[in-house]
């Protein structure tokens, strides 16, 4: 004989109207999947910005005035852009108090068929003596400095350029470069770049295949002295050198975060409305269920069921719908967040993905929200039903 328990009783009740049960599960799954997608999206962008600014190893970035957005696009979103300022800015920076070290990078845009035989990407020319941005990764991979005519590529560009196990020769701005290998993933926008030593700039300028002019530089990374406040130093830089923007580490990506915050508000309002609709749906369905089963509840109350037993019956049903809906929603939402992420401009070029713990946390929050919405929606009909006098429930009064 089949098991006869509260659980089996509740599950059989759910099977009475399979379509209604399926619709409830589906609506909860839909809500939870939206929640998972939104949380994943927001968290991913947020973590990319934090990881990138941390890994850059720089306290302040200095770029030409008005180019802050473009610099963030390159560093955070792997976008291909160029901007230049006078190299004399470096000398001016050296006179500012509290600056411990600085290093410059020049960004060149490769255009296939015109200057280069690699797909469009950023070519970063940097000073290996002063550098503290690329060096840790370069030492790890190469164990020596890059020579003239040598290049190393970021992890995300390796596939495009077919660099990997073997060295490849490529033309960059009319000069032949030997691609020595692939850097380890840094988790920054520079993962899609190609790196060359600053000493190659002269030959590149001679080729005439770039808009770069002599004595120009794109960005300066600044490290402040121990105990100095990067925000204060950045302010000092902007006050002293009018032609630059200085962005402290914690402010890197602020523009994106501000945009994201607006997006967040839209998402929160959308999810709040969807949650209220789901609560209303669950309430309506469970009110209908309560009316349908009022006489049955009256009967079981008459033969000894307590109010808590009635709650237990319905809560098992609610929890079942909530749990199944939430699990399906989490799976769907995670899949959508992975598959569709690349279709969002904001996430298109970011390299870092969410870790397992973050994904589990998002799943847990969404699960609790899904189940909670079910319980909140069903609470009032359950309360009403369990408090009815058995005879009145049986008579349907």
């Amino acid at each position, binding site marked *: 004989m089949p098991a006869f328990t*509260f659980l089996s009783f509740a599950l059989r009740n759910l099977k009475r109207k399979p379509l209604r049960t399926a619709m409830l599960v589906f609506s909860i799954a839909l809500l939870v999947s939206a929640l998972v997608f939104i949380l994943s999206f927001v968290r991913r962008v947020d973590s990319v910005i934090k990881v990138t600014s941390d890994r850059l190893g720089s306290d302040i970035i200095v770029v030409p005035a008005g180019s802050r957005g473009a610099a963030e696009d390159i560093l955070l979103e792997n976008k291909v852009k160029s901007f230049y300022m006078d190299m004399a800015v470096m000398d001016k920076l050296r006179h500012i108090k509290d600056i411990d070290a600085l290093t410059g990078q020049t960004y060149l845009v490769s255009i296939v068929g015109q200057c280069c035989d690699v797909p469009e990407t950023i070519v970063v020319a940097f000073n290996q003596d002063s550098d503290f941005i690329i060096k840790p990764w370069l030492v790890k991979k190469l164990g020596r400095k890059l020579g003239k005519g040598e290049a190393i590529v970021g992890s995300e560009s390796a596939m495009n350029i077919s660099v990997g196990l073997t060295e490849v020769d490529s033309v960059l701005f009319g000069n032949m470069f030997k691609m020595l290998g692939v850097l380890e993933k840094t988790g920054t926008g520079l993962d899609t770049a190609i790196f060359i030593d600053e000493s190659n700039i002269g030959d590149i300028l001679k080729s005439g295949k770039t808009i770069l002019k002599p004595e120009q530089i794109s960005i300066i990374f600044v490290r402040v002295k121990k105990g100095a406040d990067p925000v204060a130093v950045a302010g000092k830089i902007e006050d002293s050198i009018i032609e630059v923007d200085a962005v402290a580490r914690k402010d890197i990506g602020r523009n994106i975060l501000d945009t994201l915050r607006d997006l967040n508000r839209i998402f929160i309002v959308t999810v709040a409305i969807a949650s209220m609709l789901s609560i209303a749906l669950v309430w309506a369905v469970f009110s209908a269920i309560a009316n349908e089963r009022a*006489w049955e509840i009256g009967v079981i*109350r008459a*033969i*000894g069921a*307590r*109010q808590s037993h009635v709650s237990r019956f319905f809560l098992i049903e609610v929890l079942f719908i909530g749990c199944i809906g939430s699990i399906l929603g989490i799976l769907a939402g995670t899949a959508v967040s992975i598959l569709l992420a690349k279709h969002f401009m904001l996430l298109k070029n970011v390299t870092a993905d969410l870790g397992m713990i973050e994904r589990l946390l998002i799943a847990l929050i969404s699960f609790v929200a899904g189940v909670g919405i079910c319980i909140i929606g069903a609470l009032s009909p359950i309360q009403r039903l369990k408090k009815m*006098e*058995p*005879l009145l429930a049986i008579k349907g009064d």
Partner: protein
Amino acid sequence: MAQIEIRDVSKIFTVGDLQIRAVDDVSLGIEKGEFLSIVGHSGSGKTTFLSIIGGIMKPTSGRVLFEGKDISSLDDAGLSGYRNNTVGFMFQFASLLPILTAWENVLLPCLFGSGCDVNDKKRAEELLHLVGLGDKINAYPSQLSGGQQRRVAIARAFMNAPEVILADEPTGDLDEETEAEIMELFKKLNREQNVTFIFITHNLDLARQAQKQIRMTHGVIKEI
């Protein structure tokens, strides 16, 4: 002392501005093992009166004492325990849960008690055999006739070996033969197990089979 003492019990329903006295200041004592019938016209308050005795409706005033204990003062757990262990209720309509088999419907009261063990499961089967439905254990209510459903409800009322059986027109829509069989079963259980029986009927012949008969009119006991 009577097993059940009903003292000055009234039940008033309010419908809009109208107040209906379904049970009007009724007092009655029922001895253990008594076989009592209640007759009266529709709307005379019989079902309300029986429901108050069974603890499935609270009186507006007055008290119902079971073996000296006031059931009106019990909390939900106490009252549910009374309904579960002390009283077996039979309704005037088919009251089986459609998603449960005959056996599960009979077993239902133990689910709300201390849980169903092997003995309970065996007892449910035995009760179904006792009411002549040993071959319908796994049948769902929709697969049973009206008479068979009544028998399942009777078996369920006996599941937790109650001291009192309250039956609201237990043979209401049954044919004469089935009605007679069920009355015989009631008498047998009353005789052999000393269970108190209180049943409502419109059938005066059936009412006369009881040791004691009462008539209700407009919520008042008129005749004993």
